[in-house]
């Protein structure tokens, strides 16, 4: 008798659950949005995205659930986002690797497989040396490298990473060669290696190096942006010092191709508002990172140009692989 009642209750619950399955006519968003980060929890991209999403949630009215999917510097995440349903409930972020992976044969897709919602962040590359290093300016450093090829040890992440490409761009343009070393601890270990005297210099975004820079352990020779970075007005750019080297690592938010334009617009508005929020601005200023808010069109144009730049650079350093 009791068993029968339970069965009926169970059946009723099932039917109720089925009936409450979401229908398509509701306004977007009507349930939580999944945000995929292709990097590990606690890393640079992770923290920036978490702060941004926490603010964007308020403008969207639905929680954004963050999922970390580390693997291949974003490769796994890109593939997953591109294959998700284009209904606006699965989005994720990128770094510059969206333009390098397809040219290195890591994954077959690039930014064309997505709707780019917004570009929200940019970190230029920079060159750092120990506080008491013999080179006082970028020029001294470059000329020294010219005299002793393959001798100055520079830590620069791993092959194919944006960090390393920034350094290799300098090599290519000036026809010099450093002894480039990979770090075991990932991109953020570079400044530590310089401060400890294990390497001569490192290539790192100001964000990564800010702590040790503020502590006075290391100093920059130059930053690879077009104009001086707001958070570091005292660092001269490469261009000012006569070297035509510009390299940024930008972050975008992607949605699968085919996501309706209204959805993309709504997302853009929400995230744009988030970039203006006090919390985010404070965080980015304190980290030393640049905030942007480029919409889909500008972002797509930028990415197309970036593709070209990286393709050429990768060919020059010998990492280019023909797409299969």
């Amino acid at each position: 008798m009791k068993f029968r009642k339970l069965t009926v209750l169970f059946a009723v619950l099932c039917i109720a659950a089925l009936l409450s399955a979401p229908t398509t006519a509701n306004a977007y968003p009507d349930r939580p949005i999944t945000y995929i980060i292709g990097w590990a929890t606690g890393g640079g991209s992770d923290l920036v995205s978490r702060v941004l999403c926490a603010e964007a949630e308020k403008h969207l009215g639905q929680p954004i659930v963050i999922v970390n999917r580390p693997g291949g510097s974003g490769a796994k995440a890109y593939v997953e986002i591109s294959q998700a349903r284009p209904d606006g409930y699965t989005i994720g972020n990128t770094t510059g690797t969206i333009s390098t992976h397809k040219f290195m044969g890591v994954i077959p897709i690039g930014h064309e497989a997505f709707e780019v919602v917004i570009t929200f962040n940019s970190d230029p590359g920079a060159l750092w040396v120990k506080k008491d290093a013999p080179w006082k300016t970028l020029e001294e450093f470059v000329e020294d490298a010219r005299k002793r090829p393959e001798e100055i040890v520079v830590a620069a992440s791993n092959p194919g990473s944006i960090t390393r490409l920034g350094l290799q761009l300098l090599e290519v343009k000036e026809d010099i060669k450093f002894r480039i070393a990979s770090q075991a601890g990932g991109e953020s270990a570079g400044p530590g290696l310089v401060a400890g005297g294990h390497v001569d210099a490192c290539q790192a975004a100001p964000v990564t190096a800010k702590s040790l820079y503020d502590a006075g352990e290391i100093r920059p020779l130059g930053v690879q942006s077009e104009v001086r970075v707001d958070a570091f007005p005292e660092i001269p750019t490469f261009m000012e010092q006569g070297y035509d080297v510009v390299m940024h690592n930008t972050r975008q938010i992607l949605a699968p191709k085919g996501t309706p334009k209204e959805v993309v617009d709504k997302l853009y508005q929400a995230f744009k508002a988030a970039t203006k929020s006090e919390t985010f601005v404070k965080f980015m200023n304190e980290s030393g990172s640049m905030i942007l808010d480029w919409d889909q069109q500008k972002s797509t144009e930028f990415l197309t140009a970036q593709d070209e730049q990286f393709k050429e650079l990768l060919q020059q350093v010998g990492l280019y692989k023909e797409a299969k």
Partner: protein
Amino acid sequence: MLLAALETVFTLKMIALIFGGSALGIIVGALPGLSATMGMALMLPVTFYMPPSEGILMLLGLYTGAVFGGAYSAILLNIPGAPPSVMTSLDGYPMSQRGEAGRAISLATVGSTLGGIAGIIALIIIAPILARFALRFGPAEYTVLAVFGLSAIVAVSGKSLARGFAGVSLGVLLSTVGMDHFTNISRFTFGSIELMSGINFIPVVIGLFGLAEVISQILETAKEGVIYKTIKHLFLSRSDFLKVLKGFLPASFIGIVIGVLPGAGGTIASIISYNQAVQSSKEPEKFGTGIPEGIIASETANNASVGGAMVPLLTLGVPGSSPAAILLGALLIHNLRPGPILFTTQPMLINTIFIGLMVAQFSLLLWGFATAKIAPWILAVRREVMLPAIALLCVVGSFALKNSFFDVGIMLVSGIAGFFLNKLGVKPGTVILGLILGPMFENNLRSTIEISGIAPVFTSPICIVLWILTAIMILYPICRMLRLKKCESE
């Protein structure tokens, strides 16, 4: 200044936040698959709108609780709930299988608290010195550190050294799966994009320790639920407490030193501490059967590493561990940049952090003893529901890590393989040792060679010290074995 900080911390709200944070942390730590980093990342948005001291203290409570919480599932279910507790299960689980789960939890509680306090004292007093020390660790030093950690093979192998070496080799081999990030070459990935990022060691741990044990228990017919002995004293028995006092100094020292190094945290600290405890004990063969010294060594070290990880974070702004990286983020959001500047511009906050951390350690005492009597009741649950529940927990835990079904698959395969390997005499601890330390060894060795060739590995002063320590760790037990054999033959 100190007085003002004390006033700030000892308000009802703050204490509640710290204790609440650590309770949440214990839950996060106890659930397999969830780690301190994840828990803190999830709580991060909550701290945005709190005054910085409140938010930071809550996160610190979480961190402390999570590192300790892993001991619960390690002791009760043989599944280390968080990576730093891997070594705890080696002695914690056998102890709980004997019916002394409450004792094990009490040991873990006191050990963790004392280790944590030691870590904080080190943080307060010698932080700048430790920070300098941390900077001197380059790839060469990490390489030899990894070798030193690997010398724990001898401690974890049990009876057969050959099997121990085989297990570690297997672990190192597994750690090489994936895209090699020095050269972008895929190793053992069979074209799968999932395998490209390598085999994450948490699902392997869950499978090897948890699922394998479940399968093993099914095979043992009609096993009664373990009868737990109620602990007579709420606190530790006198002899146990003496053992804690004896063991906590070396363990804390190791925990602090390793915690200070970015790139090495509670997990490696507990491995090295466990190894040290085995080698310096008069009865090394008892380790792994459920003795208090094993639990003490592991839990004290991993909580001491929390204080250690805070050293580079507060003095240089460089996080000493992943959870510390989240703390860095939390500080940045409030416009606070840790580093020497923070010490001079915000001494109040720094003192608040120190005191709050201390309070967090005492919260462990509260939660630990409160649950020491109750938690073992889990073991009395009947196996028909216990085993499926543990299996489900293993599945969900492996999934939750990276939202990946593939990880669950890895857990399943490790569980099956682990069961067979265990039955054939290869201890799971050895495989985990290889899996954790393999990448540290390989990547740092290759980095050293790229920077300067292999020379520093043998010439740098820190490396030489570590080599000597490694030699002691390996030769000492051999000498002892030979001496024993000599005694026997006389």
